[in-house]
Structure formats: structure tokens, C-alpha cells
């Protein structure tokens, strides 16, 4: 583990203190100047990273500004995506040119994004934690490495390939076997499982594919946290007569709670912004709220891709600017979610999160 973490408490002299610590070496002004120059140079190149993040938010905000002003707050609460009459002459409302009848509201996108993400988390967290418990406690350390690698590579598969698999394999399977089965069994008891089982494109399929992408993140983080639990904890629980599972479930797992919450936030951020796989399996609903788990949905990220072509037909550009507004909202949400995730992981749980590669 020690090898893998970026050890915050490293004992070597940080650059900022080297020159003052090494007093016995007579340092010429030139040496100090060179050091300062190199450090400043490095710091300013590193500044490209925050600068590009700022540029993204800023440019999107500036570009989307007319749309933000035109759409107002009702944008988030209305269920209409209507470009207006594209054959008519543009009209001017409150200083903004739009096509007559144009009206934008993305409630269905917000609902679709939230529902698919939450359902994905509901699927992914139990499976991820279960797999992590089994890997950490029941699998031999050497074998664990290989099985973990195999399962975690799920997160490395490009989302368009998962979308391809979902489109070509998963959807026929779900639509022909699982969905009719669910409708005719628990569908009679629980309304959201009932109703027409649809074509396979929809909320559940999107959530399933999303869950597959985020499960490795949860498994890997919880597994690491479980393995890192102090041995005395495990031994005392066993000495008190707890079974192996009770030790893991009642003693070790509660200790990884904060790490799990952090990982869930990270997973949430990833699921919110996932585009291609959702685009290929969600059914791309328009102005429609799902009534059961089989109904088609659309998410904010997928909608940007699926609608840009038609938005370009709007000669006033308001549709394209409204899509930019969606992108801006998505960007800000994901920045907040990811910042929260890092804060939870690093400050609250004290878990030195190693940068994960595939995830």
C-alpha cells in the first residue's frame, strides 16, 4: 500500500524549505534565482490545468447567457423541448431573437438523469460492496489481485463498446426474457415494475449499463479499505465468537462507511455525465416522463449529442445556446459532486485515495 499512495507526510525536504534548511551551503544569489525561476516556471505551466477548467465554465456561460436569460428558472421545471416554427421568420422577445413558439424546459432530462443515476447506484452499491467483501475476506491474496484486475477492467472498457454490447446483446435479452418476466410477476404487486414491458430501450437498461461502469470503482475502493483494516479489530471480533461474515459485516464494513460514501459520490459524478452508452440504450425520450422502469428516458449528457443536429436547424441559434446551458448545468453539477467526493474521501474519511487508473 505504502508504495501506491501519495504520502502526504513524506519526510523529504519540500522544495520550499530546501534553501533555508541547507544553510551550511553557501548559496549564491544566482542559485537562489535559478531555483525561484524554475519553480515559478513549473507552477505557471501547471496553471494550464485550472485555466482550462475555468475556460470551459466561462465560455459555456458566456455562450449560453442569452439562453439562460430567455429560459429563466422555469427551464428546470417544465417539460417542453420545442424549437418553435422553424419555417417562420424569427421574432424578437425581450431583445432576444427566437423562432415563434420556441419554448425550452428540461424537466424530463433532469428526471431521466436523476432516476437513471439513482437506480444505477441502487444496483451498483450492493453488488460492489458484496464483491469487495468477498474479494477482501474470502479470496487468497494472490488470486485476489487477478480477480480484482479482471473485474476492475470493466471500468476501462470504452463506454461506446458497452453501448454496443447493450444495444446488440443486452436489449434483446432484457426485452424478450427479463422484462416480460418481471411484468408478469412482481409487476402485479409493485406498479413501477408493471405496465407494458417496452422495447428494451429505457430506464432500467440505461441504469444497468451505468451500474456496470461504476461498480468497479466501488468494489476497488471498498476492497482496499477492508484489506487495510487493522488486524487486531478482526482478531478481537473473531475472539468474541463472531463468525467470519459477522466480523466483516458488523465490524469491518461499518469502518469503511466514509470511504464508501466518497466512492459513491465519485460514482454518482461518473454516472451523471456518462454519454455514449446511455445514448445507445436509453431510447432517447423527448418531453416524456417515465411511468415504469421500462419506459424510455433521456439524460442531459445524451441529449446534447442526440439533439445538436436538430438544434442547428434553428436559425436564431437559441436551441444551440440552450444546449450549451444544459452542458453548463451538467458541468457545474459534476464539479460540485466531484469536489464533494474528494473532500469526503480525503478530509472526512482520512483515506489517502490513490489515483485510480482505469476509473
Amino acid at each position, binding site marked *: *500500500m505504502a*508504495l501506491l499512495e*501519495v*504520502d502526504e507526510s513524506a519526510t*523529504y*525536504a*519540500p522544495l*520550499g524549505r*530546501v534553501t533555508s534548511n541547507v544553510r551550511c551551503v553557501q548559496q549564491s544569489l544566482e*542559485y537562489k534565482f*535559478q531555483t525561484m525561476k*524554475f519553480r515559478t516556471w*513549473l*507552477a505557471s*505551466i*501547471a496553471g494550464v*490545468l485550472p485555466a482550462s*477548467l475555468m475556460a*470551459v465554465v466561462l465560455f*459555456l456561460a458566456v455562450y449560453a447567457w442569452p439562453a439562460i436569460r430567455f429560459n429563466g428558472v422555469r427551464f428546470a421545471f417544465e417539460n417542453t423541448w420545442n424549437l418553435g416554427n422553424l419555417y417562420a421568420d424569427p421574432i424578437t422577445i425581450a431583445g432576444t431573437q427566437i423562432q415563434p413558439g420556441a419554448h425550452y424546459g428540461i424537466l424530463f432530462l433532469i428526471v431521466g438523469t436523476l432516476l437513471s443515476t439513482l437506480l444505477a447506484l441502487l444496483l451498483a452499491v450492493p*453488488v460492489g460492496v*458484496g*464483491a469487495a467483501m*468477498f474479494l477482501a475476506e*474470502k479470496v487468497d491474496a494472490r488470486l485476489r*489481485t487477478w480477480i480484482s*484486475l*479482471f*473485474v476492475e*477492467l*470493466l471500468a*476501462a*472498457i470504452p*463506454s*461506446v463498446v*458497452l453501448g*454496443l454490447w447493450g*444495444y*446488440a*446483446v443486452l436489449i434483446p435479452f432484457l426485452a424478450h426474457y427479463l422484462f416480460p418476466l418481471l411484468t408478469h410477476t412482481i409487476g402485479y404487486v409493485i406498479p413501477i415494475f408493471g405496465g407494458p414491458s417496452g422495447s428494451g430501450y429505457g430506464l432500467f437498461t440505461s441504469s444497468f449499463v451505468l451500474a*456496470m461502469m461504476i461498480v468497479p470503482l466501488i468494489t476497488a475502493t471498498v476492497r482496499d479499505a477492508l484489506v487495510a483494516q487493522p488486524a487486531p479489530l478482526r482478531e478481537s471480533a473473531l475472539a468474541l465468537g463472531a*463468525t*467470519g*461474515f*459477522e466480523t466483516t459485516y458488523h465490524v469491518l464494513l461499518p469502518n469503511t462507511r466514509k470511504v464508501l460514501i466518497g466512492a459513491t459520490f465519485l460514482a454518482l459524478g*461518473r454516472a451523471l*455525465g456518462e*454519454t*455514449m452508452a446511455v445514448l445507445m440504450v436509453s431510447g432517447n425520450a423527448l418531453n416524456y416522463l417515465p411511468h415504469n422502469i421500462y419506459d424510455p428516458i433521456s439524460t442531459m*449528457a445524451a441529449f*446534447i449529442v442526440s439533439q*445538436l443536429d436538430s438544434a442547428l436547424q434553428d436559425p436564431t441559434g437559441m436551441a444551440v445556446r440552450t444546449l450549451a446551458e444544459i452542458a453548463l448545468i*451538467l458541468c457545474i453539477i459534476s*464539479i460540485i459532486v*466531484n*469536489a464533494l*467526493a*474528494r473532500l469526503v474521501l480525503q478530509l472526512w474519511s482520512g483515506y489517502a485515495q490513490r*489515483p485510480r*487508473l482505469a476509473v
Partner: protein
Amino acid sequence: MTIDVASVSHQIPLSRTASASHQVRLSRRLFSAAGWIAAGSALVFLSALMVWILGVVFIRGFGALAPSLFTTVTQGNGGGLLNAIEGTAVLSLGALLLAVPFGVAAGTYVSECRFSRWASVIRFLADVFVGVPSIVLGYFGYVTMVEWLGWKFSVAAGSIILAMICLPYICRTTELALGQVSNDLREAAYALGASDRRVIMKICLPAALPGVLTGILLALAISVGETAPLLYTAGWSNYLWDGSLTHSPIGYLTYAIYTFINEPFASANALAYAAALLVTGFVLLINVVARFVLGQVRH
């Protein structure tokens, strides 16, 4: 007087304690067994999904592979993937060319000046940046470069957006790699009077080179697997790249996967599966290698 051991032990009703504890233990044992079975089946389920996906991609992909894929360009609903392979290579290498200098420098700064406030700001923002959806960056690229700067769908726009996606990854993996360089090396170099620049450029970075290179490879894998940000920055072209950076769209493999699987033609679907095989194989290979080099496999 001797204690009748047998009678003393008989004062405790052995059979009752045994049966009572046995009852408790049975329910707990059942709970534990059920728990492990549930946890184990979660793992089996995940592995089965992975096998299922890899099976579909590799079996159908290999079935669709043909030499002509690598020698001809896409024509209508068939042909080859030469233009897409070339385009993916051009876009990804262009992205690396832009992202590597900045990413490695940022990672070096974050690792070697880790106690400065600016470094922790950058580390935090790199983590946040990794989480920004790629479609948001793609749309940013569309708004700024394709429309505002008037580059149209182009190699430059696609590469710059891919570079922005790679940048935080390279920064973090460089930091990870430098973090594994022994502190003794740094201290020895400073003790000999080496300057910051010497310590970093001649001691730390060479020692961390395998890790840094792997991080770069990983960024390559990410850019090869990206689709959404390229749809509206790079466009698509059936032809080979004409060498111009702007005003000319370019093909790439992930577009072939996304588009050709929706076509009602077997030849188009075959192209999609072949492209999926190439992309998945490449990305997984890099990820496995990366884990070994960066030491995440050796616990």
C-alpha cells in the same frame, strides 16, 4: 474427600447448553452462509458480465476481421477502416503531443512542491477535472473552436479537446510515479548541491520514467476510447486525412462503432464489431500493462 468429577460435570446440563448454543449458532451460521453466498454471487455476477462483454466483442470482432479492413477506407456501408484507424492515431497522438508537456509539468509540480498551496489547488482541480463529463468538454470545443474560431470539424479541435481530457490523468499519474521515487535519491542529490532543476530533471523524472510513460500510455487509451467529445469536434470522414489541421473532418474508430451498429446492413455491423475489437483490445492491453508498471497489481 475426593470430588466426583463425573458428578460435578453432570450438574451442568450439558445437553441443554449444547442445544441452546447450537440453536443460536445455527441461525447465525445460516446468516453468515447466506451473507457469503450473496457476496460471492455478486463477484461471480460481475465476472460473468465481464466474460459476456469480452466474449461478444472478441468473438464477433474476430469474425469481422479481414485484411481489407486495414487497407481500404470506408465506403457507404462497407469497405474498410483504414481512415478510422489513421484518424484515431492522428487525433490521439495530437492530443498527447499537447497534453504531455503540460501534464507532466503539472504532475511534477504537484509532486515535488506538494506543500505549496498552489500545488494542492492544482491537485484538487485535477481530481475535479477528471470528473467533468467528456461531452461537456466536447460541447465547449464545438462552441469555441468549431463555431467561434471557425475551424469547422477538424483535427485541431478534436485533438485539443482530447488533450484537455488527458491532461488531468497525466498530471495525476505523473504525481503517482514521482511519489514512488525514493526520498534518499532526492536528499542525496540536494546534499551534493544540485539545484531544483537538476534534481527534478536529472534524478526524479528519469527514475520515475516507467511510471510517467505508463501514465501517458493510459491517457492514450482514454483518448482512443473517447467518442462523445469527438462527434462534434472531429466530425467524420470517409477519406484519409488530407494533412490539414483545420477545416477538414477526420474519421475515428469509436464513431464507426456508434454509427455502423445502427445500420441495417451486415457489412456495416461487421465494421462496428471490428472497430470495437480493435479499440477494446488496445485499451485493455494498455490498462493491464499500466497496472503492472505503476504497481497497482503488486500489493
